[in-house]
């Protein structure tokens, strides 16, 4: 029976080795599995990097095409997820450079270009208590993150969320390490202001857990 790709049972490729073999055979089902398994996390990464849903979708599409085209070159030294992660990161940075070239320069002043995105996220204040991050609080963090100007958001995402070293993050952005650190501090200040009520609760929860 022939079905739509989004209705496909992907359990046939649960094993990463089998999935890789399928991708190398250009099996369309393997491509579907690849996307269904990894796209959610990679989309969030692309969105955090680009700050725009449409750009994130473009980056994700370009990244998957690139991954499928170069799957033969994947040597398996890192996991498939790590490899895809790196492709999305590089693709997003290239996308941002192109965007910078054709639009206004990356400006560090806060603007309201993200108002349309903010409208797509819920605005109810979450209960920040508890150790686990609720979906509402996660969305609040993302909204604060996406409201940052590109330069500050990229420094924060690469260094604090993606765990790149200062040197790696600075190199990825084509700036010096000191500049990266200053942007990171400024991103922290902006996030502290945006998330102040939640940080208060986090501090109280953490203090209670350690007492």
């Amino acid at each position, binding site marked *: 029976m022939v079905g739509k790709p989004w209705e496909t049972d992907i359990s046939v490729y649960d094993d990463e080795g089998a999935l890789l073999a399928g991708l190398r055979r250009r099996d369309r089902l393997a491509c579907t599995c690849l996307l269904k398994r990894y796209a*959610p996390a990679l989309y969030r990464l692309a969105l955090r990097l680009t700050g725009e849903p449409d750009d994130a*979708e473009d980056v994700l599409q370009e990244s998957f095409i690139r991954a499928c085209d170069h799957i033969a070159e994947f040597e398996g030294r890192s996991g498939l997820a790590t490899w895809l992660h790196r492709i999305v990161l590089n693709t997003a940075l290239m996308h941002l450079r192109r965007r910078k070239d054709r639009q206004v320069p990356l400006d560090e002043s806060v603007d309201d270009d993200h108002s349309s995105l903010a409208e797509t996220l819920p605005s109810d204040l979450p209960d920040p208590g508890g150790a*686990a*991050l609720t979906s509402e609080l996660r969305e609040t963090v993302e909204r604060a993150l996406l409201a940052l100007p590109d330069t500050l958001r990229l420094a924060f995402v690469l260094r604090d969320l993606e765990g790149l070293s200062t040197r790696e993050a600075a190199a990825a952005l084509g700036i010096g390490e*000191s500049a990266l650190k200053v942007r990171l501090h400024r991103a922290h*200040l902006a996030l*502290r202001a945006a998330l102040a009520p939640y940080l208060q609760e986090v501090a109280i929860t*953490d203090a209670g857990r350690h007492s």
Partner: protein
Amino acid sequence: MTVAPPDPHCRELAALLVAATDDEQAEALLRAHVATCHACTSAENALASLVRRYREAEQPPLAASLEQRLLAQLCGSPPR
């Protein structure tokens, strides 16, 4: 433990950074400030804790419409 929103002094520091042209000097200024500012230390610790939870949180699924668009674009016609 309490975390105060950025106090006026921290805001002043942030404002100074906007005008700073020497990144190394600005970084040294920031580092010295954060090391001695209780509000900044508490807030930085709380932010680090929140970021850690954010990183560890489960990823939400893709919106169905987005997944369908991507699958149609990347996988084309249904697998056989």
